[in-house]
């Protein structure tokens, strides 16, 4: 299901890296040799076979990341991102695979549109891309898309991300019908009559600053509805970008009852709260909004204990002139592919809040499992999908430093701990 351009396969030996693959149960100082894009051997003092040798002493070698939630803005807004630039950004961030959302212009709701994207990705994509297709035609929330044909054309899942499926009856039908395709639904949970166009979490900050408020229940009521429907139909579903403690609690209860529900969380919801909005920076405007610290802590807890299985950037590029306006006039969304690991390493791993192995698992094996992708792994015989990380390095986040076409990052001007030193995706070195 992953489309990627053909690239020269790597022949390389990583010398003396800390090899950490939580799913394989490896955490050791080893050499890793890649022969023609495939991991040939792990061990001590491996022969180089005349390959290029990368001195990885003091560096960390892990399975490359998988991002289940990216907006590539193609077709329609190629000024903001293209398949080439978005996947280059992914490579720079340590990703070997990303999933692209269908809320483009036109919406990815037909096999023809999807097919042209897959072809384009086969020409342009630096790392593997899989495309989601819409649940409803035009994401209008009225008629189902032809999910069978879309699945055959390569849709990895279905989502109306950006807007909720407001009608409970339609969501029920979508769950029923998607089951025939074997592809999950990925749901943007927002009850529009409660979020009411709100831009900031309903809390002290919105009350003080006067922003139209989007309360936590605007998300959690929809999460509860969709989990109830999934339980009734005994179908799996994936919850996109959770933000509220109430949603986490609902997910936890549903999973305990045996509902096959998975969820993702973004770096910004794990690190920031609505207090960040006080500086009125349009680069902290996102949907769902940043919420209270109690919400953030609930998300971190759920990520740690596995209730939330995946970290998703919700990478949402926007043109500079569209964000260079007062907060209320700015579009929702921030970029994230190139900063996800360094910011989470800085803010969660270094302070001892989240084990490094857990972070790596939730950025790679977790999302791969949810969407049925082969897990990037460090084992002899596996295709090389690797990220080499310098934990002692730093990442300076600057407007000119992005490989993405857009620079609407909430981390502009910051310096983060750790640096992505090299990425190998599908056997090829795609970033160093």
């Amino acid at each position, binding site marked *: 299901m992953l489309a990627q351009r053909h690239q020269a396969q790597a022949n390389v030996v990583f010398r003396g890296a800390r090899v950490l693959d939580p799913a394989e149960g490896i955490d050791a100082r080893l050499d890793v040799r890649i022969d023609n894009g495939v991991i040939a051997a792990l061990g001590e003092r491996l022969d180089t076979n005349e390959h290029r040798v990368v001195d990885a002493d003091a560096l960390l070698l892990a399975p490359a990341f998988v991002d289940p939630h990216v907006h590539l803005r193609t077709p329609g807004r190629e000024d903001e991102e293209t398949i080439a630039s978005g996947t280059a950004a992914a490579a720079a961030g340590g990703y070997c695979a990303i999933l692209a959302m269908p809320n483009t212009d036109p919406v990815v709701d037909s096999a023809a549109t999807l097919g042209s994207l897959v072809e384009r990705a086969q020409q342009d994509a630096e790392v593997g891309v899989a495309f989601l297709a819409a649940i409803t035609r035009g994401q209008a929330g009225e008629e189902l898309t032809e999910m069978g044909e879309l699945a055959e054309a390569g849709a990895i899942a279905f989502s109306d991300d950006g807007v909720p499926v407001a009608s409970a009856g339609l969501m029920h039908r979508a769950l029923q019908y998607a089951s025939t395709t074997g592809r999950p639904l990925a749901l943007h949970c927002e009850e529009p009559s409660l979020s009411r166009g709100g831009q900031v979490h309903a*809390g002290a900050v919105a009350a003080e600053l006067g922003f139209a408020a989007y309360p936590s229940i605007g998300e959690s009521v929809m999460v509860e509805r969709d989990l109830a429907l999934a339980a009734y139909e005994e179908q799996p579903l994936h919850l996109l970008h959770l933000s509220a403690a109430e949603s986490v609690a609902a997910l936890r209860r549903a999973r305990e009852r045996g509902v096959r529900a998975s969820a993702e969380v973004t770096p910004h919801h794990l690190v920031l709260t609505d207090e960040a909005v006080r500086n009125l920076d349009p680069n902290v405007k996102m949907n769902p909004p940043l919420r209270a610290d109690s919400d953030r802590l609930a998300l971190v807890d759920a990520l740690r204990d596995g209730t939330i299985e995946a970290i998703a950037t919700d990478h949402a590029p926007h043109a500079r002139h569209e964000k260079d*306006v*007062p*907060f*209320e006039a700015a579009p929702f969304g921030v970029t994230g592919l190139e900063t996800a690991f360094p910011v989470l390493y800085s803010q969660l791993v270094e302070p001892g*809040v989240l084990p490094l192995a857990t972070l790596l698992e939730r950025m790679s094996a977790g999302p791969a499992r949810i969407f049925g992708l082969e897990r990037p792994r460090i084992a002899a015989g596996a295709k090389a999908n690797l990220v080499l990380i310098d934990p002692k390095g730093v990442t300076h986040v600057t407007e000119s430093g992005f490989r993405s076409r857009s620079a609407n990052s909430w981390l502009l001007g910051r310096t983060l701990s750790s640096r992505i030193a090299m990425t190998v995706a599908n056997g090829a070195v795609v970033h160093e």
Partner: protein
Amino acid sequence: MRNIRLVGDELRPPARPARRHLLSIADLTRDDVERLLGTARTFASSLEREVKKLPTLKGRLVVNLFYESSTRTSSSFELAAKRLSADTLTVKSIGSSVDKGESLKDTARTLAAYDPDVIVIRHPQIGAPHLVARETNAHVVNAGDGKHQHPTQALLDLYTLQDVLGALDGLHVAIVGDVLHSRVARSLVQAFALVGIHCTLVGPPALLPRDLDVEQSSDIDATRDADVVYVLRMQHERMQAGENYVPSLREYTARWGITPQRVRPGQKVMHPGPMNRGVEIDPRVADSPDSLIERQVRSGLVVRMAALYDVLTGGPVGVRALAAAEVA
């Protein structure tokens, strides 16, 4: 779990030194407020002279940039600048390049090319004055940004209260009506807290900001013990069918309208204008001797003179918000 750090100060680039602005009451200290009110009193006595014009801001340029309709705010800022001998330039969104889709940033930069000393801005969106402060070298005065802030209104209300009632500390003011959508109320709540005024918000539940840390009640009797009833304008657009903040304007008036029966003798009444007579306020109350509404308008002139004077010469106003905006 306690040791999770937010993106901390150590990660932020150093803030540039900030110019003085008046963007939000939240940026002011009690000393700032007292200095501003003192300056306004000085100007008030100067206005009692035969020649009312002062040379204080001669040669300075004050640009008034208004993206929303306004009578008292725009006229009082313009007159305030003129009374201080500043040159003034008024730009309204209607009939300007804004009509042609020019962005706020471009309009601000265009006006900045004339090197204005002060830009006074009213805009329907929260944070518009902050953007102008970032994009120009002018001192910026917020004349109302969306539902966020209207700092000179709060200052002129404090001035009026002090003028009429003397000491502010210990007064009790009940703010009645659509608090949720009111920038005046947001500025007042912060200004009252600074000077020690006890504040109660009164209105229908859906029009009260439940997350604001201020005493709140939906019972109109909560105004009874207040020294002052501050009535907010009921915005008709909030009352359209289907919004359901309240069932109807008629029912709002019946339950929360300020009528003579709901005002004690001697209890003062204020309103930031424009009034909907017969909706949120009974005309008999608006025109009674206890109404301070006209005095508020008169205070507007001297307080805005003080605001212009203060950003150009006075203490550290607005440093906090701009520093925060600049690291963003």
